[in-house]
C-alpha cells in the first residue's frame, strides 16, 4: 500500500478531504485514484484476496469427497466433546456435503412435565428448546440468522416477572419495564428453556457473521458455543444444546420434535422442510421457518390454526354504543341537564352524555332516524356546536369530533360474522376453549346481545368532572359485567352439553374473551407442501404482474429454484467464481421449470434478478440474517404469547430496495 497516499487520506484536508464524503459507489472512485497513485509507486501491490475455492476444488466435485472431511471433523470433535456419539448416527448423505446450506432450529417445549423442564421451577408455562443443525460441511456461516433468531428470542421471550410479588422481583421487574408495557400479563408465558440443535463444528468463516462466536470457539461444537452465549445473555432461561444434525433428526427421530411448543427451522432446504412441516402438523407443534440467502430470505409460519383473543390492534374504534345506547346509559344521560347555567358544570359534561342526548333530540325531529348523509352529519355537528356557551369548552369539541360514532352501523363486523359462522363453532368434546367461547358468543349475539357483541366496558379519557366520569365508567362496567355473566352461563351450558367439566374454562378467561370479543382473530396456514404444489394461481399472476411485488415473487420462485438446483447439482448456484457463467442459465432454466410446474407458463422472471441470485452464491450476510431473525422472533413472540396477530403467508425479504412483501399463496 502506498504510504504517501495513506497519509494523505488520513490527514484532514487536501487529498483526503473528499474521502470524508461518500456517495454510493464512491469507494470505486477511491480505488481508482489509489490505483493510479500506486502505478507511480515502487512498492509491491497488496496481496490479492483469495477466491474462496476450496484448495482441492477438482476432486471436490466427486461425491465421495465430503465423507473424509466429515470424518476428520468428527475426530476433532471427539477429542473435545464427549457427546460425539449422537453425531455418529447422523446420515452421511454424500451428495449433501457440498451444499452451502446449514440448517438450524430452535424449539420451544410446552410441556412443563417433560424431562427437559426442571421440576423445581414454578409454573413457567413454556420451555424453549432450540437447535441449530448443519450437516453440510462446505459452509457453516449460515448460522448467524439462526443465532439471531435465538438471541432475540431469549431477550424478548423471557418476561416472567409481572405476576411476581413486587419486593422480591424488584430487579427483574426493572429489567423488563419497557416490555411490560407491550405485553402485559406476561406471567403465563415466560420461556423456560431453549435448546439449540446443531451438528457442526465452528470454523473461521462462521466468525464473519455470527456474533455469538468468537475466536476461541473455532474447532468447538457450534451448538455448545451458541448455547453458552445464550446462557450468558439471560440466566433465567435454561439453554440446552444437542449436537446432532437436524436433518438427521427429521429423518430418524421425528417424535423428538413433539416435546416442543415451537420449532424454528433455519436454512432448511425444501425436502427437509416439507418433512419437518408434516411432522410438526401431525404433533400440533408450531413451526417457523426462516431462510437467509444473499440479499433475500423468507419467514413463514406453519401450523393448522392459531386463535388470538388479545389481538391488541393499533387502531380500533372504542365500544361506546353511542349508535345503540342501552337503557341505563340513556337514563344516566337524561339525569344530566345540558342547559345548566353553571359554566363550570357545563364544560365538564362528558361528550358521551352530550352525544347520547343530542342523538335523541335529532331522532325526535327526524322520524326516529339518526344522521346518515353527509349533509345530515354536518348539520348534526352544527347542532352540537350551537349548544356551546363558551369557546373553551373542550367537551363540546370532543363531541363534535366523535359525532360520527352515533352513525356507526349497528351489530357485529364482517370479520366477526365470519368467525361465528365458521365450521369450528359446531363444538364437540375435542374443541378448544376458544371455539367453545365463540359458540357461546354466537348464542349471546343472537339472544341477550340483540345482534351486538358483549360490551367491552372501558371508556377512553374525556373531558369531564371526576365524579361524572367515574359514574359513567360504572355504567359501562355494569353492562359489561351483565354481558359477561350471560356469556359465562352459555359457556357453562355448552361445556356440559359436549360432555366436559362445566368449570373447565375459568371466569377470568371468559371475562377476558368478552372484553376482546370484537377483536378475536383466527389465523390458518396451509401445509407448506400444499402451497408449493398448488399455490393460488390467481394470486401468483397478480404478484407477477404487480410492479411492487415483482422482485418479491421473483425471489419466492428463485428461493425454491436454488433448492432444486442444489438437489440436482449438489451445491447452490454461484458458489464458485469459475462456474458463475454456467450457473446463470442453469438457474434460469430451473426457475422457469418451477413456474411451468405451477402453471404460470407465460411468465418469465427478471433476468437481472436471476443473475443476482447467482451472484449471492448462497452467501449469508449478517445484516440480512439479523433482519430475518428479528422477523422470526417477533412472530415467535406473538405465537407463544397468543397476543397480537401473527403474519399469514410468506414474508419475502427484498434486500435490494427493501420492498419486502407478504405473499399469500
Amino acid at each position, binding site marked *: 500500500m502506498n504510504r504517501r497516499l495513506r497519509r494523505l487520506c488520513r490527514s484532514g484536508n487536501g487529498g483526503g478531504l473528499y474521502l470524508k*464524503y*461518500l*456517495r*454510493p*459507489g464512491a*469507494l*470505486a472512485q*477511491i*480505488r481508482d485514484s489509489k490505483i493510479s497513485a500506486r502505478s507511480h509507486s515502487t512498492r509491491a501491490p*497488496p496481496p*490479492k*484476496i*483469495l*477466491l*474462496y475455492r476450496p484448495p482441492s476444488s477438482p476432486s471436490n466435485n466427486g461425491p465421495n469427497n465430503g465423507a473424509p472431511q466429515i470424518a476428520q471433523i468428527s475426530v476433532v470433535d471427539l477429542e473435545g466433546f464427549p457427546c460425539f456419539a449422537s453425531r455418529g448416527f447422523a446420515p452421511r448423505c454424500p451428495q449433501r456435503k457440498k451444499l452451502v446450506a446449514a440448517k438450524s432450529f430452535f424449539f420451544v417445549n410446552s410441556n412443563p412435565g417433560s424431562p427437559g423442564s426442571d421440576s423445581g421451577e414454578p409454573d413457567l408455562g413454556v420451555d424453549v428448546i432450540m437447535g441449530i443443525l448443519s450437516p453440510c460441511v462446505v*459452509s457453516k*456461516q449460515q448460522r*448467524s440468522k439462526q443465532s439471531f433468531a435465538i438471541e432475540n*428470542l431469549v431477550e*424478548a421471550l423471557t418476561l416472567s416477572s409481572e405476576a411476581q410479588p413486587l419486593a422480591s422481583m424488584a430487579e427483574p421487574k*426493572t429489567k*423488563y419495564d*419497557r*416490555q*411490560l*408495557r*407491550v405485553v402485559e400479563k406476561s406471567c403465563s408465558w415466560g420461556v423456560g428453556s431453549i435448546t439449540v440443535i446443531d451438528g457442526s463444528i465452528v470454523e473461521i*468463516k462462521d*466468525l464473519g*457473521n455470527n*456474533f455469538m462466536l468468537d475466536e476461541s470457539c473455532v474447532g468447538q461444537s457450534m451448538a455448545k458455543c451458541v448455547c453458552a452465549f445464550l446462557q450468558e445473555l439471560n440466566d433465567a432461561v435454561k439453554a440446552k444444546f444437542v449436537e446432532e444434525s437436524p436433518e438427521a433428526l427429521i429423518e430418524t427421530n421425528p417424535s423428538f420434535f413433539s416435546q416442543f411448543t415451537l420449532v424454528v427451522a433455519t436454512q432448511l432446504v425444501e425436502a427437509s422442510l416439507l418433512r419437518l412441516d408434516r411432522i410438526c402438523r401431525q404433533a400440533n407443534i408450531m413451526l417457523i421457518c426462516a431462510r437467509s440467502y*444473499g440479499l433475500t430470505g423468507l419467514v413463514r409460519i406453519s401450523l393448522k390454526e392459531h386463535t388470538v383473543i388479545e*389481538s391488541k*390492534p*393499533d387502531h380500533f374504534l372504542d365500544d361506546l354504543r353511542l349508535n345503540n345506547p342501552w337503557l341505563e346509559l340513556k337514563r344516566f344521560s337524561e339525569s344530566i341537564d345540558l342547559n345548566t347555567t353553571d359554566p363550570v358544570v357545563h364544560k365538564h359534561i362528558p361528550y358521551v352524555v352530550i352525544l347520547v342526548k343530542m342523538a335523541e333530540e335529532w331522532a325526535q325531529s327526524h322520524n326516529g332516524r339518526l344522521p346518515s348523509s353527509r349533509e345530515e352529519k354536518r348539520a348534526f355537528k352544527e347542532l352540537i356546536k350551537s349548544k356551546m356557551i363558551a369557546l373553551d369548552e373542550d367537551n363540546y369539541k370532543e363531541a363534535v369530533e366523535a359525532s360520527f360514532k352515533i352513525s356507526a352501523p349497528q351489530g357485529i363486523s364482517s370479520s366477526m360474522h365470519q368467525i361465528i359462522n365458521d365450521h369450528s363453532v359446531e363444538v364437540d368434546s375435542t374443541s378448544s376453549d376458544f371455539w367453545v367461547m365463540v359458540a357461546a358468543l354466537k348464542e349471546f349475539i343472537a339472544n341477550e346481545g340483540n345482534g351486538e357483541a358483549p360490551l367491552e366496558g372501558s371508556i377512553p379519557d374525556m373531558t369531564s*368532572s371526576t365524579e361524572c366520569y*367515574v359514574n359513567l365508567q360504572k355504567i359501562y362496567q355494569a353492562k359489561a359485567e351483565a354481558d359477561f355473566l350471560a356469556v359465562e352461563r352459555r359457556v357453562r351450558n355448552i361445556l356440559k352439553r359436549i360432555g366436559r367439566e362445566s368449570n373447565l374454562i375459568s371466569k377470568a378467561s371468559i371475562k377476558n374473551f368478552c372484553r376482546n370479543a370484537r377483536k378475536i382473530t383466527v389465523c390458518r396456514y396451509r401445509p407448506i407442501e400444499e402451497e408449493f404444489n398448488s399455490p393460488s394461481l390467481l394470486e401468483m399472476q397478480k404478484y407477477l404482474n404487480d410492479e411492487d411485488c415483482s422482485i418479491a415473487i421473483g425471489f419466492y420462485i428463485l428461493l425454491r429454484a436454488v433448492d432444486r438446483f442444489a438437489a440436482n447439482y449438489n451445491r447452490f448456484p*454461484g458458489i464458485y467464481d469459475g462456474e458463475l457463467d454456467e450457473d446463470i442459465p442453469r438457474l434460469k432454466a430451473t426457475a422457469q421449470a418451477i413456474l411451468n410446474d405451477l402453471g404460470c407458463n407465460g411468465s418469465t422472471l427478471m433476468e*437481472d*434478478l436471476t*443473475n443476482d441470485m447467482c*451472484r449471492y452464491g448462497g452467501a*449469508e*450476510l*449478517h*445484516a*440480512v440474517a*439479523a*433482519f430475518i431473525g*428479528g*422477523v422470526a422472533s*417477533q*412472530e415467535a*413472540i406473538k405465537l407463544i404469547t397468543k397476543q*397480537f396477530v401473527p*403474519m399469514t403467508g410468506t414474508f419475502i425479504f427484498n*434486500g*435490494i430496495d*427493501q*420492498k419486502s412483501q407478504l405473499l399469500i399463496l
Partner: protein
Amino acid sequence: MAGSLTGSSDCGNRWRDLDRLLTRPGNIVGPIFDPSPELRSELQQYVRVLVVGAGGLGCELLKDLALSGFVNLEVIDMDRIEVSNLNRQFLFRLQDVGKPKAEVAAKRVMERVKGVNIVPHFCRIEDKDLDFYNKFNIIALGLDSVEARSYINAVACSFLEYDSDDNPRDESKKPMVDGGTEGFKGHARVIMPGETPCFECTIWLFPPQVKFPLCTLAETPRTAAHCIEYAHLIKWDEVHGGKAFDADDPEHMQWVYSEAAKRAELFGIPGVTYSFTQGVVKNIIPAIASTNAIISAACTLEALKIASGCSKTMSNYLTYNGLEGLHTKVTEFVRDKDCLVCGPGTLLELDPSTTLQKFIELVGDHPKLQLSKASVTHRGKNLYMQAPPVLEEMTRSNLNLPLYELMDKVPKDVVHVSGTVNKDDKKTSVLRKLRVVFKGIDGVTDMDTANHLF
C-alpha cells in the same frame, strides 16, 4: 492496522460471504458499483462510521456494522447502563450497570469481532464540534429522541454545499441512516442530504407528545396516568421542595407510586400499578429486542450499500409494523425545497459594515430563524463562541468588527450559527446554515431577496 487485516488469510476466509457481494458484478446495483476483490479492504481502510446512541438500537447497529465488514467505528452516547437496559441491550451484563454505555458496547463488540476498532465517546452529542462529525463517511442513528435526531441531522446537513446554480455538491453530502422503534413497529430511513428529504423536511412524521393540562391533574383526574403525573409533577415538589426527582431511584419511584395509588383510591380510579407508574414517569417507549434487530439490520444493509454500491439503495423510508400480521412499506418522501436545514441555507443580505454583534442580533430577530445565544463559525473558524468561557473571552473582541472583514472579505459565503430556539415552550439546541451576501461588493448581482433584506 487496517492493512494487516486484509493480509491474513484467516480474515479473508472470515469474510467469504460478504466478498461474494463485493467482488461480483450485478445488474441491480448502485450507479458506480465497481466490484473487485479489493473493495472490502477499501471499505475497511477508508470508511469511518459514527453510531449515535448505544442503546437498544445502537448496540445492534455496532454489532451489525462490525459483522458487515466495517472496521473503523465510533460510538457516542451520554448515558450509563441501567438495570432496565439489560434485557434487550444485549451487549450489557449485570456487572456493567453504572458504566457508560458507549464504552461497554465498544469493548464488547471489539472482544467478539476481531480486527474491528471502535472508539467510544461518553458525552453529549452537542459536546462534539463540527470537525468531529465531519470525519465520518456515514452517520448511523440509533436514537429515541426527536431532539437528538434533529441535532445530528442539522450537523450532517451543515456540511452540504451548493454550487452557483444551487445544486448540491456531491462530495459534500454526508449520508445518514436513521432507525427508530416502538413496540412491534419501527422505521429505517436513508438521508442523503441534498438528494432525499432530511429529518427536518419530514418533521411532521413525529407528532408532538401528548401532555396533560395541569388543571386536569390537579382538579379532575380521570385516569391512572393523571394520578401518577399528579404525584410526579405536583405532589413531589410540594413535599420534597427543592429535591430533584430521580426516576432511576427506586425509592423515589416507590413514593410516586404510593402517592398515585392514594389519589386514585380517593377518586375511585383504577389501574395504578408500579410498572405503569414507571412507564408514565419515565415516558417509556415500549421496546422489544426483535424490532431493534430488524430496524438496525435494515439500516446497516443500507450503510453497506451506500459505502460499496453493491446493491440499489432504499428510497427512502421503510416502515415496519408487526402488530397485526406484518406490514412493510417503502415510501419515497420528497425534499422540502425550502428546508431551513438541508436547503441552500437562509439567505441574508448584509451591508459590508455590519458588525458581528449586529449580525447576531439580526439572527435573533429573523422571523424564520429566531435563534438566540448564537455562536458563529465560518469555514471552521470560530468567529464568536458563547461557551466555554475561555473561548468566549478569546472571541469577544470580534463582536465589534465587521463580519465582512472577519470573513476575509469574501463577497458571499456560508456561515454556521448555533444557538437555541424556543419550540413548544422548550429550548432546543439548533444549528443553522446561513448564506451571507454582502451588498455592493463586486461579483454579486442584485438579488431579489426582499424578504431577507436587513
